[in-house]
């Protein structure tokens, strides 16, 4: 299952990574090497084997519905790259994505 440039660019878009042309070539090579390596798992007979979906606890603890202290607005937003009116400012959202490309 070799990944094509097109597929890699699709995955990159899903992951919100912008790959430049010179990044793409070595990445394709690396990714395909790894995918080729992991394909050995397909050799195993996994019929009837349950996946390990949770590593430790077999039951989630439940929390009481009691309010705990929130952060102050200043603390909540102090790491914000751009903050206005105590909110995080983001650039305009284009319907359907970017107008950059």
């Amino acid at each position, binding site marked *: 299952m070799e990944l094509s440039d097109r597929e890699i660019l699709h995955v990159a878009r*899903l992951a919100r990574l912008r790959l430049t042309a010179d990044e793409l070539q070595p990445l394709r090579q690396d990714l395909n090497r790894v995918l080729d390596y992991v394909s050995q798992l397909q050799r195993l007979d996994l019929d009837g084997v349950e*996946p390990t979906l949770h*590593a430790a*606890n077999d039951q989630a603890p439940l929390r009481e519905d009691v309010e705990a202290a929130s952060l102050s607005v200043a603390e909540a937003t102090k790491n914000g790259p751009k903050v206005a009116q105590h909110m995080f400012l983001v650039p305009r959202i284009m319907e359907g994505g970017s107008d950059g490309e």
Partner: protein
Amino acid sequence: MASKPLWTYEAHTLHDLFCEGAVSAEEIVTSHLARIRAVDASVGAFLYVDEAGAVAEARRQDQWSAAERRERPLSGVPVAVKDNIVTQGMPTTAGSKILGEFVSPYDATVVVKLKQAGAVIIGKTNLDEFAMGSSTEHSALAETRNPWDLSRVPGGSSGGSAAAVAAQLVPLALGSDTGGSIRQPSSYCGIVGMKPTYGRVSRYGLIAFASSLDQIGPMARSIRDARLLYHVIQGADRHDSTALSSAGDRTVSGGPWRIGVPREYFGEGMDAGVRRLTEAALERLRGMGHALVEISLPHTSYAIATYYLIAPAEASSNLSRFDGVRYGMRAEGRDLLTMYEKTRDEGFGAEVKRRILLGTHALSAGYYDAYYLTAQKVRTLIRQDFDKAFQEVDFIVTPTTPDVAFRRGERDDDPIKMYLGDVYTVTANLAGIPGLSMPAGVADGLPVGLQWLAPGLADTALFDAAATLEPQMEPMVWPMGVEA
């Protein structure tokens, strides 16, 4: 009064000296800070040293009565924290550019526990970006070198913590281990490092790499010190739904034990020095009256492939939050999508991007079953291998890594080769069991690690077992000459 410099002492000794009033916390801390100033320019273990904060905390502790000092098991003891564990008073970078100037508004649970135990947090140590790597060469921020040979890597991803402990910059450090990231650098740097049972230590405040595999653990120059730190940080946490309550520790008889030696861990590709020292250690165990039992963990050869699907898949999800909106760096763009893509493109390093892409692909429509789900099934088989083995044996002993610390730059080009170095350590993460690396000796000037594996929840028993072997080994002579 101490005759040797204070920075050469182990944590429990420093704590005792402080409790007795033989030395002040300030003396202990300034001694370590001086050592860091003298040595860390060449080792590069720390990303951030909080000199003022550490001295202030030491002075505060110097006001404590003897009883107050005793109450807190780490009072007077300097500790370093891997920089993927968040701290309120210091920056946290995860070794990445994308966190920018981030200062956490909260302390990780382990940091809260350290502070409650009286530890003096000295600073934050270097790591492979987001803990993705086995050499600490993938840090976006600094280079860390192996104190035994500065031309070599310290291992990774907790390479900064391992180098700091080995170079005696601190007696104790926290690391995190997702596929061997505590044990492998401990092995390369000749120290003790332990990955607890999954759930034994709260992950709250550990910047997630692969949530179902990550564990925080102790790193130290002796098993006694590592156990001391482990007992401070372990336990249930109401902020972590996967953290287990302290009850239910699994005990193991006082011995003699049946010690499993998995044949899959002694195959080809093992360094000759590693083989020699591992076999010597096994002989010592036999000499102590334990039975060595050859066992098989038949799915071992699938562990790396399994790991390199599960870990990137989870990582791709965990790292999505670094989007330039609420914290960290932002690369401006005229619209949202451009901002996202530029931020993440400039903020993440090549190895992180490689894993995000791999993980995103493994979870994407049409591939989930073939990759992620398949890997989680193989993971079940690997766990079952261990379940079966531990019906037969009390502990398993293996080399920690097939090799010794390699030269910097040596494995830059080949991801598979780099990943294969984790072959003996990833299985413990996949199975959720505890693993410990202790020094097995030095081969050609470089340390070799011996790995102990125990059944899940047998963490204390694991320390106890490894501690019986420690006095039988050649004492480590720590690399003092790193100032060069």
